[in-house]
């Protein structure tokens, strides 16, 4: 039996058991805190502690009761739509801006102070201002994600451009490449892996931020759903929400990682 593989399976199971233990003891101490088995029933259905038969939120994620009461699947889709809308806008603006900053020292001087100042601001600080401008939940959430996502994309794109080897540029000079040819044939192939690293970081942060943003904006979406379950005293659903958000975030990261590897020339031809 493969020893490494056994460890990879057994060790996480031990940690999982430890987590269940800590969780159970918290549930013992804190009144009304859901136990692991309560939560399991709330997720997948069964008979709950009060002896009632219920359908779990994960057992029926596709239901649509009305505009404001939809299954978990629709909540997540709503959040993902906002994340990707803001994320794609950030790519459309951030990549060209990053290329400009990477290629032109003047552009770097011009933009760098503002990037440095705005980058550390929590995107949620922008949210009230954006809500005031748009007066619309969706546009506010999307523009918050846009502001969240754009900094790592700009910074990594510029870094990618700067890491173009001087020798490659000399080759381009000897062959008298036009500026467009330089970008398409030399700069982009070098910068693309960096750009994807930036995009991967951005998407991760965007998924973090959307939950908080939706708690503030309300409406529909996984963030507001979690907040709503708190107001409804459905504490087990908060735990389910946390796990679902975690799994989706993990999945997004894996997918972005795969896409990034596909475009990374340094990872080709090594097999």
């Amino acid at each position, binding site marked *: 039996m493969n020893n490494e593989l056994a460890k990879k399976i057994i060790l996480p199971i031990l940690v999982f058991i430890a987590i269940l233990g800590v969780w159970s003891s918290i549930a013992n101490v804190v009144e009304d805190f859901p136990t692991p088995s309560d939560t399991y029933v709330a997720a997948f259905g069964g008979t709950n502690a009060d002896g009632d038969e219920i359908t779990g939120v994960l057992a029926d994620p596709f239901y649509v009761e009305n505009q404001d009461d939809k299954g978990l699947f629709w909540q997540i889709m709503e959040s993902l739509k906002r994340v990707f809308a803001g994320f794609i806008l950030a790519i459309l603006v951030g990549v060209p801006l990053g290329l400009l900053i990477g290629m032109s020292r003047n552009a770097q001087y011009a933009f760098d102070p503002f990037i440095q100042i705005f980058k550390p601001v929590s995107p949620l600080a922008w949210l009230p201002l954006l809500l005031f401008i748009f007066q619309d939940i969706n546009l506010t959430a999307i523009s918050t994600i846009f502001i969240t996502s754009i900094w790592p994309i700009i910074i990594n794109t510029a870094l990618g451009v700067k890491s173009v080897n001087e020798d490659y540029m000399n080759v381009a000079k000897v062959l008298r490449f036009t500026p467009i040819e330089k970008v398409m044939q030399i700069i982009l192939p070098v910068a693309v892996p960096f750009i994807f690293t930036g995009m991967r970081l951005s998407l991760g942060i965007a998924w973090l931020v959307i939950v908080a943003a939706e708690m503030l904006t309300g409406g529909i979406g996984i963030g507001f759903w979690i907040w709503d379950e708190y107001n409804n005293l459905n504490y087990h659903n908060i735990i389910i929400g946390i796990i679902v958000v975690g799994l989706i975030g993990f999945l997004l990261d894996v997918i972005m990682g795969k896409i990034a590897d596909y475009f990374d020339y340094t990872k080709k*031809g090594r097999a």
Partner: protein
Amino acid sequence: MGKQKFLHLENIEKRFPILGKEDYIAVTNVNLEIKKNEIISIIGHSGCGKSTLLNMISGLDKETEGYIFLKGKEIVGPGPDRAVVFQNHSLLPWLTVYQNIEMAVKKVMPELSSPELRERVERYVSMVNLDHAKDKLPSEISGGMKQRVGIARALSINPDVLLMDEPFGALDSLTRANLQEHLMRIQQSVENTVIIITHDIDEAVLLSDRVIMMTNGPEATIGEILEVNLPRPRNRVELQHNEEYIRCREAILSFLYEKFAKEDE
């Protein structure tokens, strides 16, 4: 006027500004005439400005004073008429051997039809015996093979002058010898004007028609010019006992280690 000079360097000087100090004069008072199809080596200790000199001919660097003419026209900026083989091959790592050469040919000869393009690229891949590796990425081939691709790429655009900046400097001595053989064989068939920067005495004598010896910097200039009167094709083993070969080696040795010995750095 008589016949036109091919490549001509006139009173070249290169100064580098240093903040708050007088300019550093790297190279000064260089006058040199290079004939068509001539193979020239420029040799000197490190810091003698030989790479600076090559960069000025390639146009990647601009001379502070003086003029460089190629076929009667002054050189301003880099161009494909002066192909460069860089020391660290500088192949684009995301393109295969074939694509690296194709990129250059496509750019310099846009008029070629696609069969003509393919035929030309393949001819130059074959010239450096890399047919078996043409679809490999630079990361998958050895240092010597990469440098051969660099040479093929430089020659494929049919330059007037081939400039080589310590082309084999980063390679072990057996690989280096192998590449020197490649270069001599190719030169026999294509006939090109070649300028090689080197710090290897044997390489200089083996490859060149003339060896330009540079004095030490700062204010480096041409110290002596040595004619190598050896018939081609040259065989490195037979040359070891050839009087002319020995005379040339000794002349360079004496220049580098007696007349212009380099102090400890």
